[in-house]
């Protein structure tokens, strides 16, 4: 919420937006649960759809509720660094799965 966005008109308009996001989030939750009843051929399809819906919901919360949409440059810079390290964390984990040290591999 940048400081030039403090006029009563802006806040009134923002309140309507918050309610819209609320219903979008409710709909997203409904879809996520409904997906539980839908049969996908492969597990990765289920995971992909579930995570896409969750990401869309999270984006709504961050952009509108947390006012990231129109935030100051420094906040974005902090988040770019966070995203970089977060992706690094996930990828290192995935790489590590095929990189067992000598004599530590699970033998079936």
């Amino acid at each position: 919420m940048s400081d030039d966005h403090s006029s009563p008109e802006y806040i009134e308009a923002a309140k309507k937006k918050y309610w819209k996001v609320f219903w979008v989030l409710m709909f997203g939750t409904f879809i996520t649960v409904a997906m539980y009843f839908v049969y996908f051929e492969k597990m990765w399809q289920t995971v992909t759809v579930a995570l896409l819906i969750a990401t869309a919901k999270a984006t709504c919360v961050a952009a509108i509720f947390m006012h990231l949409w129109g935030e100051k440059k420094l906040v974005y810079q902090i988040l770019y660094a966070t995203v970089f390290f977060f992706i690094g964390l996930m990828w290192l984990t995935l790489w590590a799965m095929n990189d067992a040290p000598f004599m530590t591999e699970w033998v079936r």
Partner: protein
Amino acid sequence: MEIPYTTQPREDTGLYNAKLGIWLFLASEVMLFGALFSSYILLRVGAAEGAWPHGLMNIPIGTFNTVVLITSSVTVVLSWAALKLGNFKRYQKIQAVTVICALGFLGIKTTEYNEKFHHYEIWFNEPMTVAEHPNLMNQSFVEETTINKELIGTVPSLIGHLNYIDKDGEKHHAGIAWTLATLKEKEIEEIEFELDTFHYRIPARIQAQIKKSGKYDKGEHETIRVQVSDLRRMSAFVPAHSTFFAIYFTMTALHALHVLAGAIVIAYILWRNNKLWKRDPERYTNRVEVSGLFWHFVDLVWIFLFPILYLL
């Protein structure tokens, strides 16, 4: 000495200090939960086929808690908007709803944990066959669906509620988180198990299909008596039960701690800190904004926790 930049943005950052602080804190929180999410992926992908349990979570309760948290997220931002418009009374009312939602979330989570602590799984020394013990597994959905019958033809373990039989032959409810060692310590030789067999062995999405087809006759709470000497292992749904429950309790308990911390801060600002509103309304509004940013983050984490732990 007055604390600088509580309301005015710093020239170099363009932000008031608390806002910069909360974003840096949230960045560290992303890494904290990120580490747990990556652990979850590692454990899930590395689990042997069929070893990852399905259908043990209470989806209606999880969904309801999601709705509660989303509602609290919108009330937080609306309460901030009320302050921005100078309406303190409206802010108080809306923010009180946030605190109620937070307590509601924690109350529901506690109930859910309690339910888990009262469910048990027992593993037999030798797998029991369904044919020999027809009440082990409800047959109608096995016959009328395309589930791999071999998969559930033998039962290495059972899930349900635990009762024990004392020396006089009387039945009693077992306590929380008993193990085989507890039974031996108490010199219990026989248990009675109220079955809840549908879960665990069948993938969640196939369970859902069966339920939807209307062919599912639960067959729950039928009882079976088992000699303790026939058991290899027994565990309630506690972290020690399995990798799934270990990561489930770690992630949800850490999240619940965040909910508790957020609720305490929001409640403090709402009821104990409101003199600041009269003295310096802009600074007070900024405090509400910063606590709100933390609250939205807590909501954001749950948005990912719910599908991965409850639905996938």
